[in-house]
């Protein structure tokens, strides 16, 4: 690392300043809270970001303020927390005002039974409450997508959310509102003093660049380093596979990678833009694309996971890829040797293999803006509707000429092969055809040639084949406005 680099991270934990140097890249926020700080209100239920018992809020500086978002502490790696405000369940109630309105609503509505998921539920409701996103039932359900409760059946929790929403955030009952300008100032100070950070502990190294130049320099020296943006995938390598990830480069905080830039021709989305932050630009492109975001993980995962990570990990079922391929997305890779721009579909070579060279990182995903002339839809089918991994994910983009003939048809599927992949047979069969239910169904038979899916715990090959075909019909019906 450069001579100027710092050797510690700084953050605020509830109302306490924390400086840490003895941090390894695989140290999780949950273990830090529980084992080092005795903050045992935050629970471990699964250690893979699926149950939400470990939910805490992370406040990030934003335009002079602080934006709070729920995250899963179990897979949140410590080096990613420099310059943030971490809020745990212990911070909500106050000595003067007793229970926080969200907590009181949970008590009054009998929202807890065994109580183990409850702190996490409280924190997710708190996230929705403080950001005032719980205006209706669907929003509350969305807010709770990342929290499992095995006792209550959720009904009482939903009632609690509704009841809490009657008390709007105010400084009297809420500590983070009371302290917001103080916290914002402090985070700004930490940010202003920022230099690259290099943490070394137990022979494991965490590298936290501040700029793209620093990142390039690190990757030039450590071309095989583990790149971590949101860590929602790498977190599981740590907690489940116990892989060594050192040296690890943390890039999720980098402003340069969190930009969304729009030109006449395209939208360039920085690799570290989170799923949550994709929702608005996606909504501008296509409603179906924005709706897909709410089917990826729960809010905690969407607050951490990034578009670059979702592409970079090369998952055959990463849900963004089929949609992005169908929309002719390109991926921009950068290294000390220069930039490369390639169609996203070419980035996926085979299962577990991507076209990323040593020392390269994904800087952005580029999407053409000319979607308005087409029909576009993406469909995700999973065993459980929310917070599940696709059995099949299918995306379609269609252009028709005025007499109803298909002039262009793009389609890609996830969950059907070793990589997210174009349905080239389907595309060929439909291009030039008259767009009708019959032609759609007939062309869908080509999917048997396009894909040879596997059977696993998410679905059988038979179901994947059948659903893949039926989704073409679904798309047809949607384009003509039938249910």
């Amino acid at each position, binding site marked *: 690392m450069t001579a100027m680099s710092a050797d510690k991270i700084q953050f605020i934990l509830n109302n306490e300043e924390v400086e840490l140097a003895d941090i390894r890249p695989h140290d999780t926020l949950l273990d830090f809270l529980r084992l080092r700080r005795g903050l*045992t209100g935050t629970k471990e239920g*699964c250690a893979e970001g699926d149950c939400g018992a470990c939910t805490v809020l992370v406040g990030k500086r934003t335009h002079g303020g602080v934006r709070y978002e729920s995250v899963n502490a179990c897979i949140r790696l410590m080096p990613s927390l420099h310059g943030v405000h971490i809020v745990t369940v212990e911070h909500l109630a106050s000595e003067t005002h007793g229970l926080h309105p969200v907590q*009181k609503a949970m008590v009054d509505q009998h929202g807890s*039974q065994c*109580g183990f998921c409850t702190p996490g539920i409280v924190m997710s409701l708190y996230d929705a409450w403080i950001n005032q996103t719980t205006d209706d039932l669907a929003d509350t359900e969305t807010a709770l997508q990342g929290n499992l409760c*095995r006792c209550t*059946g959720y*009904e009482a929790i939903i009632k609690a959310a509704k009841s809490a929403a009657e008390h709007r955030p105010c400084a009297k009952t809420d500590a983070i509102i009371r302290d917001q300008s103080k916290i914002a100032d402090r985070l700004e100070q930490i940010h202003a003093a920022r230099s690259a950070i290099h943490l070394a502990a137990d022979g494991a190294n965490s590298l936290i660049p501040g700029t793209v130049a620093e990142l390039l320099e690190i990757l030039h020296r450590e071309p095989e380093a583990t790149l971590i943006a949101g860590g929602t995938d790498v977190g599981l390598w740590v907690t489940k596979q116990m892989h060594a990830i050192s040296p690890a480069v943390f890039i999720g905080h980098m402003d340069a990678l969190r930009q969304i830039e729009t030109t006449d021709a395209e939208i360039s989305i920085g690799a570290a833009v989170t799923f949550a932050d994709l929702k608005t630009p996606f909504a501008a492109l296509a409603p179906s694309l924005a709706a897909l975001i709410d089917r990826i993980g729960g809010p905690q995962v969407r607050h951490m996971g990034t578009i670059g990570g979702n592409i970079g990990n090369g998952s055959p079922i990463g849900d963004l890829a089929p949609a992005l391929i169908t929309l002719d997305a390109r991926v921009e890779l950068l290294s000390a040797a220069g930039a490369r721009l390639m169609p996203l579909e070419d980035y996926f070579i085979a299962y577990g293999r991507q076209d990323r060279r040593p020392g390269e990182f994904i800087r952005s995903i580029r999407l053409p803006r000319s979607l308005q002339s087409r029909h576009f839809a993406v469909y995700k*089918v999973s065993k459980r509707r929310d917070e599940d991994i696709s059995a099949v994910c299918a995306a379609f983009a269609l252009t028709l000429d005025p007499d109803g003939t298909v002039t262009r048809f793009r389609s890609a599927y996830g969950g059907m092969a070793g990589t997210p992949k174009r349905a080239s047979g389907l595309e060929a069969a439909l291009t030039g055809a008259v767009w009708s239910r019959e032609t759609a169904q007939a062309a869908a038979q080509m999917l048997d040639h396009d894909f040879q899916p596997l059977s696993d715990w998410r679905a059988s090959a038979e179901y994947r084949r059948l659903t893949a075909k039926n989704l073409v019909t679904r798309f047809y019906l949607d384009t003509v406005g039938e*249910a």
Partner: protein
Amino acid sequence: MSSPPAPDAKTEITGAMHDALRHDSAHKHVTGAADYIDDLREPSGTLHAALGGSTRAHARITSMDLSAVRASPGVVRVLTAADIIGLNDTSSNGSRDEPIFATDLVQFHGQPIFAVIAATRDGARRAARLADIRYEDLPFWTTIDGALDNGAPEVVAPMTLQRGDAASALEAAPRHISGQMRIGGQEHFYLEGQIALAIPGEDQDMTVWSSTQHPSEVQHMVAHVLDCASHCITVSTRRMGGAFGGKETQAAAFACIAALGARLTGRPVKFRPDRDEDMASTGKRHDFRVDYQIGFDDEGRILGVEANFAARCGYSSDLSGPVTDRALFHADSSYFYPHVRLTSQPLKTHTVSNTAFRGFGAPQGMLAAERFIEEIAYALGKDPLAVRKLNFYGQGGDGRTLTPYHQEVEDNVIHQIVEQLEQDCDYQGRRQAILVQNAKGGVIRRGIALTPVKFGVSFTLTAYNQAGALIHIYQDGSVQLNHGGTEMGQGLHTKVAQVAASAFNIDIAQVRVTATSTDKVPNTSATAASSGSDLNGMAAFDAARQIRDRLIAFAALNWSVPAGEVEFLPNRVRIGTTIVPFAALIQAAYRARVQLSAAGFYKTPKIHWDRKTGRGRPFYYFAYGAACSEVSIDTLTGEYRVERTDILHDVGKSLNPAIDIGQIEGGFVQGMGWLTTEELWWDPSGRLRTHAPSTYKIPLASDRPKVFNVCLASGCANREPTIGRSKAVGEPPFMLASSVLEALSMAVASVAHYRTPPRLDTPATPERILLAIERLKGR
């Protein structure tokens, strides 16, 4: 104008029996201040354990090299079967078929072979991966079909229930159907995983904090494993983060390993497996394959039933005997079978040993009965509800009240409950509207179903139906209450505290329930079979009554009034014309040397059961309920949603309506998960691949019914003298979820105009729905 009563002259106490009181730990739950075992401050020097498990489904261990494990940083000790001081066994039924550590034979993928004790949990987990174990594979099977094909042994003796002559009745019946149903298992997915903390003491003493529904059994197991007397072992449980049956027998192995590590190292040992290890190495709900023949008349009245219930029991017996028994006990659901023969087949498979789970086999039995009804309804083209009603048990004197186990159904209220719910939720009107809508075709189809529940309450092993409680009153009038039941979220401590508060007529704030502990109340039964408040509530009442009687006798003597002139008013006591605060009476009683502590006891009356003859009265009473669910399905993908559920459930005279409604809502949604998205999947090597929430999908908030109305049935006081005339509520509501499966069936059946029974197996994942649609379309 009257002034408000002074605080000491309240007309009623806070927290009496039947009050909708909140959970006694609710404040602590929401602030994170409720301590679970992993939250307890660790004693200094605490070590941590991790498991090393089999990577084969069935194999002989040919060699085991643990040197790399021992050499791993921070490792203090490695435990194998050879290190066990006493018995290498945790089988709950004495059959000694459940080793803590496998020795030369492994019988399921993930079976524990050794444990590492290390300075940190992380160090223990890392070390556990370094074992070099060689195997010689043996033939294995993980499924019921595999077991049957391979002539697998039964893990316990099967049971037969019969009445009348089923074979002749089937032959004589005008109509006859045979079929098969497959019912999936279920992972408990308690949010707090298994955990134990063992702290060694002097001599052979060992204190174990265990997340268990059965502290007494853990105590006995630890004593066996450490080869010491039970009086050395104290097992305590303040609360569990959920259990659902999964911590009835399954907690013992973790406690035993922690205790063994603590004994051998002389240091405290905590053992909290990772979620994946927990799911791979602990038992689940039994899968069943039901092969059935039913005979019925042209109206749809059942004349005869023969059914065999084959179950995936896993590699050992555990609780598979009583679980498969209870499946048979509930294979009648709410229906009278004139002639019946039911058999169980508890099959050995090379999978983790299946165990207790809310309902304990009953849900599987009842689901089969609802399948019988569905078969009849589709065969006759009738509304399944009409067929259900036709076959309900009678209400006395009509010759239709005898169960297949020869117990009379004396308290039948299913007719009233079903009819009221049918009216309240407009079942008929909505069903008609759905039939009309479905007839229009379209991709989205709807279904509606109203299904009954009748659940027998009592442990079928009569000895378990006993309980103890201990009450101390201190000199300030505060009451400390302890009982043998454990708190797993069901609000048991709250209910039992309400019983004590009512018994003394004092505010519940004066009553503190302490952690369940084997040194306070000995020889307890598992908190299971929905019996927690029935048994422990009565035991607590017995203890309170003893002290109250002493207080009455003392007050009468001291104040020279007849005993009948002593009356417990809210927080006060009237003694003749004198009124004293409760605490003042206690003070006076203490000075007069009145014993202010009592141990209470209760055993359930009337029940008896002879498994060999299949006759008796295994259940003290029945709890009833009914649910109506409406669903929509997408016939292109098989995806579905539950649009609305209405429930009317009988809890007798509720001890706490808020808690009971929570049990009903939660039980229903858990049951819905079992029947819909919760799928256990073993790969061809016999390894469970749905071993974490990323792969095993329990319901989320967005899966619950969009409209969800839950009511307690009114006027249903238990005809038996249970505590406050209440009824058990833990398990019965789980089966209300069968309404979802039946509604899905109707929606699927619509694609073939209801002429073909959809025969949906469970879990009815979107995949099963879509494949059933394809099957029906092909007809």
